[in-house]
Structure formats: C-alpha cells, structure tokens
C-alpha cells in the first residue's frame, strides 16, 4: 500500500494532464484539422439522417475493418516475400550480426506477437548452404501462395475503390469473388462481411446479407469481424421485419461483445423493441 502511494505520487509528477495544448500528439495545421473534421462530419451524416424504420449503418466501420484486414494482409505478404526471398543471404546477414536492432525497436508488446525469427532463419540459412536446392523447392509454392495473397489484396482494394465511387453492385461482386477464391481465412472473412454490408445497406438484399453474416460466423465464430457479423445479423432481421429474431440477435451480440462500441446502440434498440 505504501508502495502504491509512492507510485501514485511519482506518477503525478510524470504524467501530463489531458488538454487542448500541443502534446503528446504532434500538432496539425489548420488545413489538416479542417480536413479531418470535415471527413468525420461527412461520415457521420448518412447515419445521423437514417430513417428510424430501416436500419442504416454507415459503411465506415466495415471500410475500417477491411482496411485493417488489408493492412494485415500487406504485412503478411511482405513477411512472406521476405521469407521466401530469392536471395536470402541478403536478408539473413543483418539479423545474425545485429539482433539488437530488432529488440530495441520492438519492445515487449511487439516481441510477443513478432513473426517468429527461429522459423525463418534456419530454413533460409539451409537454402543458402545447400547451394540452392532447398531454395528451389520452397520458392515456387511460396511465390504461388504469395501471388494469391497479393491478388486478393489487390481485388479488395479494387472493391473498396468501386464502393467509394458508388458502384455498389460491382463492388459487391468483387468482394464476393474474393470471398470465394481467397486462401487466407482473414481475407475471406473481410470480403464476406464487406459484401454483406453492401447487400444490406445499398442493394436492398437483407436476405443475402443475412446468409453472408451467418456464413462468416459459421466459419469463424471468434474471428476478428465476428462482432460486425453478429451485429449485422440483428440489422438484417430488423430490415426483414422479424422483431423476435432481431431481439434474440441483439441479446446474443451483447452477451458476446459487451464492450463493443456498438453496445450502446444495441442496448438502445433492444429497449425500443421491448417497448414496441
């Protein structure tokens, strides 16, 4: 307890209270501030003006999720490219002679989830030492997998672009094709959810969206977009006018994701349903 008080006093002298003055975030120019706020107002507009009778959910959350998935995919593709580089000696040298670069630039939280170094180094070293045989045997399969992932990423980007321009039906078709052909479970999940969002929000196809959300949850009940999928189920039931199913879906969502940003909205909708 004495130690806690000491830490408390020490922390008071270390932490700078939250305020409007510059720091710790680097300051923005007025133009940058304006652009950021205007974008937020634009994104909030469709949701604020949505009709209460039909569930409208802005696409920004899906877009953010898909962007996250793309970022991850890009990182994964980069890791794969590094892993199966045709000239591994170049990659290995800095790792062997300067491991401290990795440890100082990526502290504990990072280290926990880092791409496992031991798995990379021995195989890559072997490829060099056996004069290329191992390298040749790995490279074709690896580059094929890498190509598939890069292609999926490109298609997702294309779909995002189409959606941003308002070509919703075309975007939905591209998302659906990625969902069918992608080899990474995360890409399939991101594409399926993005297609479902478009079906529900833009293409007046809540039944199709419902099937996609169900499919996502059946494949990956604890996937990174399971939260969106569970909330999507409730929204589909609402669009289909099925109040009992919507109520059950909202309860299931709140039970599984009590800390979700959408929990407030889900609770409010559940209350409204109880009153109706």
């Amino acid at each position, binding site marked *: 307890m004495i*130690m*806690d008080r000491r*830490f408390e006093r*020490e*922390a*008071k002298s*270390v*932490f*700078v*209270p*939250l*305020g*409007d*003055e*510059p*720091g*710790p*975030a*680097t*300051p*923005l120019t007025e133009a940058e*501030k*304006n652009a*950021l*706020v205007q*974008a*937020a*107002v634009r*994104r*909030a507009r469709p949701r*604020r*003006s949505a009709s209460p009778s039909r569930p409208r959910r*802005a696409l*920004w959350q899906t877009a*953010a*999720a898909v*962007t*996250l998935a793309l*970022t*991850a*995919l890009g990182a*994964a593709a980069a*890791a794969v490219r590094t892993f199966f580089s045709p000239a591994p000696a170049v990659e290995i040298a800095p790792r062997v002679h300067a491991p401290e670069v990795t440890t100082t*630039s*990526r*502290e*504990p*939280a*990072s*280290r*926990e*989830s*880092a*791409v496992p170094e031991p798995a990379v180094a021995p195989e890559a070293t072997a490829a060099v030492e056996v004069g290329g045989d191992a390298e040749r045997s790995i490279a074709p399969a690896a580059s094929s997998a890498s190509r598939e992932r890069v292609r999926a990423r490109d298609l997702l980007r294309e779909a995002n672009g189409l959606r941003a321009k308002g070509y919703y039906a075309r975007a939905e078709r591209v998302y659906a094709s990625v969902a069918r052909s992608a080899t990474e479970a*995360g890409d399939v999940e991101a594409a399926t959810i993005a297609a479902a969002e478009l079906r529900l929000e833009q293409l007046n196809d809540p039944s199709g969206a419902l099937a996609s959300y169900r499919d996502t949850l059946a494949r990956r009940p604890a996937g*990174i977009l399971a939260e969106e999928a569970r909330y999507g189920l409730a929204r589909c039931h609402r669009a289909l006018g099925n109040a009992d199913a919507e109520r059950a879906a909202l309860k299931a969502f709140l039970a599984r994701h009590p*800390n*979700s*940003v959408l929990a*407030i909205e889900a609770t409010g909708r559940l209350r409204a349903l109880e009153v109706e």
Partner: protein
Amino acid sequence: MSTRLVERAAPINPPEVQALIARAVRGEESALHSLGMRVMPRVRNAVRYLVRGDEIDDIVQDVLVTVFERLASYSGEGRFEAWVDGVALRVTLGRMRKLRALQRRTEPLAVDAISEPGAGLGPRYATSRQLVRALDHLADHQRMPLVMHHVFGWTVPEIAAELAAPLETVRTRMRDGMIKLRMQLEVYVGDDRREERR
C-alpha cells in the same frame, strides 16, 4: 459508463459549448464542425497517449464520428470534454482489440519513430512527447491501465471492470509498468545529460 474522477471535479460547460451541442444535436453541420474543431486537439492527445504507431488520425476520425453520432446521448451532467474523453477511450480500446487480433497472425506494430518538430511548442509539449516515447516501450497491458488511471482519471476498480481483469492483476500491471516507465525516462534523462556535456 460510470462517473469518472475528472467529471466529478469538473465545472459545467461554457454557454457557447452548450449552445453548439444543442445545434449539433438538431443536425446543424456547421455546429458539428465547430464542435469537432474544438475537441479534436484533445482527442488527438488522448489517442496518442493510448496508441503507438502512425494511425492516430484514423482513430481520431472514428472517435469524432462516434461523438457526432452519439451526441444526443450526452446527458449534460458532466463536462462535455470528459464525455468525449470517454468516447475516445472506448473507441480506441475497441480498435486496439481488433488490431491485436490481426497482429497475432501477422506482425507487430512498429514503435512510433518520432521525429521531433516541436521546437517552440513549450516545455509541456516536450515533457508529454518524452512521456509517450517511454510509454511506447511498455506492453499494452501495462500501458493501458496506467494511461486510463493517470491521464483519463479512472479508478482502479473501473479499469479492472473495463479490461475484464482482476483488480490485483491491474494493480500489478500498473506497478510493473510504472517501474519500466521510470527506467525508460531515466534513460532519456541520461541521454539528454550526455548530449548537454558534448
């Protein structure tokens, strides 16, 4: 959401803020914009305390959108800025949960490579930048409770509830985090002294 320490001690909103909120709730975009411009620096600072890396402004935009959408649910009982802080914290935590899930199957976030353009911004800026540089070296499970407690003013039981962790675990993480933070800050002080001697 339960009452925060900062809310309890805070005065009521200035009349111009109250008027802006009322207009924004009615859907006036100019009022939304003015409110956004008003709270955005604080939101960026809040998010930077919580997050390393270069995607602060993506999260800030998410926070602003959530603030605009949830404005009608602001009761007016506490300071508006404190309510916005709560939204910023929730949105950032939600985003980080997803990001962590993604990182498990890819690679970790790089620590923010900080270039310091802050000359002339005053000692508060320099101190807070040094603090987040040190925070960037902490594991998230140590950083989060420290920032939630010392920056956002949450109590330890509130943090334990939010993070779904036992009270003692949160306390231990905060103690360990504080030890590591102090060591990291001492490294910077040592660097500064060596720099001065040159």
